[in-house]
């Protein structure tokens, strides 16, 4: 039985000459909660893009689960295999209700005729409501998603992701633009979600990272710089230099 849920082997991504990822070797274990950090332009979002199929690597392999090579698959097939993603800017369907948003995610396997003929059964309905309760938005189930606040949209998106019980959840900057209270709630939510699956989070907010991370990977200029516990990477001289020393366009949180 494989230990890793996702394994990027020697992956290189080239955007018209600019190497966003350069021979990256990266893996996440089953049931692990991993945080990916790094300065702007390090390639964090690109790495997520590669996993979910939005960007096809120049070279290297992307292995999912029991060694399934997924880099040639289309995005929706990868999603159906159990990889879900929450995007940086909240991407919910503003003209549908919260319930309908989650329902849409749940009913993804129906196909054209299925969407015409099948209807929601009680079990699925209950599942949707339990997800709504988990993200704390059960009382707004019939409201238009467009009326939600920025933070609430993020939670809704997480709800849409988890209702299909993915094996790997990719989360891109979950607390960007959130208040302190919202951040706390998001952290709890993510930890609850991570109990049953692997979660890979990209984040800039070091406070938040400290709060939830067990193992952290630092990406820099398209390569893995350092990996380990929060303590270890905080004290690593190369990491410190990259974040504080050379005046890169990145943050100076560490």
């Amino acid at each position, binding site marked *: 039985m494989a230990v890793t849920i996702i394994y990027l082997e020697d992956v290189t991504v080239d955007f018209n000459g600019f190497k966003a990822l350069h021979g990256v070797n990266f893996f996440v274990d089953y049931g692990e909660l991993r945080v990916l950090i790094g300065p702007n332009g390090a390639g964090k979002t690109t790495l997520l893009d590669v996993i979910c199929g939005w960007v096809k690597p120049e070279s290297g392999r992307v292995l999912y689960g029991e060694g399934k090579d997924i880099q040639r698959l289309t995005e929706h097939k990868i999603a159906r295999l159990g990889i879900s993603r929450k995007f940086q800017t909240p*991407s919910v369907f503003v003209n549908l209700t919260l319930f309908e948003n989650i329902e849409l995610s749940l009913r993804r396997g129906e196909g054209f005729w299925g969407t015409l003929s099948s209807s929601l059964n009680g079990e699925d309905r209950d599942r949707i409501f339990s997800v709504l309760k988990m993200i704390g938005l059960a009382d707004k189930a019939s409201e238009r998603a467009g009326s939600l606040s920025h933070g609430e949209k993020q939670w809704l998106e997480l709800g849409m992701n988890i209702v299909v019980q993915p094996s790997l959840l990719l989360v891109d900057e979950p607390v960007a633009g959130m208040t302190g209270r919202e951040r706390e709630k998001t952290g709890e939510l993510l930890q609850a979600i991570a109990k049953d699956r692997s979660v890979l989070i990209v984040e800039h907010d070091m406070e938040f990272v400290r709060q939830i991370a067990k193992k952290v990977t630092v990406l820099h200029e398209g390569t893995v710089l350092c990996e380990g516990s929060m303590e270890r990477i905080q004290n690593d001289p190369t990491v410190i230099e990259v974040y504080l020393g050379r005046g890169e366009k990145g943050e100076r949180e560490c």
Partner: protein
Amino acid sequence: MGIETLLSQIFNGLSLSSVLLLVGLGLSITFGIMGVINFAHGEFLMVGAYVVYVLQTLFNKLYGHGASGVSFLISIPLSFFVAALLGFSLEKVLIRFLYGRPYEGILATWGCSLILQQAARNIFGANNVDVTSPKWLAGGVEAMPGLQLPYNRLFILALTTLCVVGIYLYLYRTAQGRRMRAVMQNRDMSACLGIRTRKVDTFTFALGSGLAGIAGCAVSLLGSIGPSTGQNYIIDAFMVVVLGGTGRLAGTIAGALVMGVLNPVFELISTSSMGKVILFILVILFLQGKPQGLFSLKTRALD
């Protein structure tokens, strides 16, 4: 059918490509900078063509029929200015409200196109009018036995090359050109740096329209012109933009070459209607493999 016929068709195709390039450049720049597809663009071509006609009629009245050469030469910059002025006004009155809304842009500018065409019909009559080419553009050079390259088409090629070089120099060697490119690549950042994006928008639109006006001059050399002359070129010009991708000069040139040259070549092989059909099918197949077109700026946006 000998090699001469093929080469002749290719050459004709090149002059067609030139027209499409001039028209397509304007479209590409406008879409690249403002996210607006201007369906009235063909009418700027028509306006340019009518400028040639009007000026010629005027000169004929004033100086008799010998002045067609002079009037034509004057028409070229004049067409540019008239079309650019029309574009400038249109931008201020309508286009600016369509910024970033391509669907709305298509429909609203289509409405403009209808109005402009009808206005042309009301002013000049619904029938096509003939524009006499200057005498010094009559005839051609004999490149090979049996293959004559008409001077008027050579002139069009030269004119287009001049314009493209001019645009290139403007975009890459002048401060205003740099500003235009900046706004095209990153509007918000340009605004933060103090570039008056509104001014750049208006100016860019006027520039693109002016180019179409010059294309109108070129078209007047090829045959009679009328209110719907613009319509004859606009779809092909759009295909040029679709094929070549927006925002890249090289792409537009490549797209124009494909649309301009392959069309007459295919017409040779089959009948006139089938030629276009084959070309279109090929374009769709091509886009299957490369949906962003021949060259385009890769973005990392989600939608």
